C-alpha cells in the first residue's frame, strides 16, 4: 500500500484519536495506512512528541503522511515531531489545518484514490475554508 499517502491522527485524548482512526478504517477501508497518537507521555490528556513520531513512521509511505490534529498543543507537538524525523522524511509530512474527524475521513478518502500529499492536504483543508 506504499503508493498511498498515510494518515496520522493526533488528539489530546487517546479515545478521540483511536475513535477517529476506527471511523476512517470503516469508512475508507484498510488500504490507506492510518496511525494515531492520543494523550500525554503518562497516558493522561495531552500530546506526546515521541508517540507522534512513532505514528508517522507506522503510517509511512513514500508519498508522504498527512497529520490531522485537534487543538493547538497537538499542532505544535506535531510540527515538533516532524522536525525531529530523519531529514529525508521531514519534507514529506504535512500538518493539515482541518477539523480532526472530518479532515481525517476526507484526507483518507482522497489518499485511497492515489492522490499526492498536496492533493490530500488540499481536500482536508477545504473543510476549514468553508
Amino acid at each position, binding site marked *: 500500500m506504499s503508493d498511498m499517502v498515510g494518515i496520522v491522527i493526533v488528539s489530546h485524548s487517546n479515545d478521540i484519536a483511536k475513535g477517529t482512526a476506527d471511523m476512517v478504517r470503516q469508512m475508507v477501508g484498510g488500504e490507506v495506512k492510518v496511525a494515531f497518537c492520543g494523550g500525554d*507521555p503518562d497516558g*493522561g490528556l*495531552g500530546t506526546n*512528541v515521541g508517540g507522534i513520531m512513532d505514528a508517522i513512521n507506522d503510517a509511512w509511505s513514500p508519498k508522504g503522511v498527512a497529520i490531522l490534529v485537534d487543538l493547538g498543543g497537538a499542532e*505544535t*507537538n506535531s*510540527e*515538533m515531531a516532524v522536525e525531529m524525523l530523519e531529514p529525508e522524511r521531514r519534507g514529506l509530512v504535512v500538518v493539515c489545518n482541518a477539523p480532526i474527524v472530518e479532515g481525517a475521513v476526507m484526507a483518507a478518502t482522497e489518499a485511497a484514490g492515489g492522490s499526492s500529499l498536496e492533493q490530500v492536504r488540499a481536500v482536508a483543508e477545504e473543510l476549514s475554508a468553508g
Partner: protein
Amino acid sequence: MTLQSDTFKSLVKEAAEQIIASAAELTALDQAIGDGDHGTNMRRGFQAVLTKLDTIGAQPLDEAVKMIGKTLVMTVGGASGPLYGSFFLAAGDALSHKKLPEDLAAVFGSGVAAVSARGRSQAGEKTMLDVLLPVLDILKAEAGRADLIERVRATATEAVARTAPMQATKGRASFLGARSVGHIDPGAKSSCVLLCAVCSTLEARQ
C-alpha cells in the same frame, strides 16, 4: 565556555525545583485562561530533566542545553514542551559557536527567536514571549553591568504582571477573547520562575 560544570548543574537543578514547586500555581493560572495543565506538564518535563541531571551535567555546555530541550520536548506533553524545548535546542545550537558570558544576549536571543517561530507569536500576545523579549532587551542593553542579575529579575517579574491586561490571541487562551483579560499568562509566569531561579543561583555563587 566559562560556566563551571557544577554551577551549570546547580542552575538546572534550581530551575527544575522551582518549576516543580510552582506547579500548583501554574496550573491554577492555566485553569483560569487555558486548559489547566501547564503546571502538571512543566512538572513532568522538569522532573525528567532532574532525573537526567548527571548525564546532562557531564556533556559539553552546548550539548547539555540541547539535551534539556530534547527532554522537555519528549516529556512535557503540551504546547509548552515544543516551546521551551525549542528555546533550549536553539540556545544549545548557538552555544556551539558562541562564548559566555560575552555572547549571552545572542545565545538567549537565539532561544527567544525559536520560541517566536514555533508559536508563530510576537510581543503583546499574552505569552511567554512577553517575559522573554523584555529580558532579551535588558541582556542586550545592559550586558556587563554589575546589577544585571537584579535587572533581569525585576524585568521578568514586572513583565509577568504586564500580561494581565493583555488579550490573548495565541494558544488556548485566545478562545476566551476578551475574557482572558485580567489574568496573568501561565507561560509568562513559568518563564519568570525559570529566570528567577537562574538569577538566584548565580547570585549565590558570586
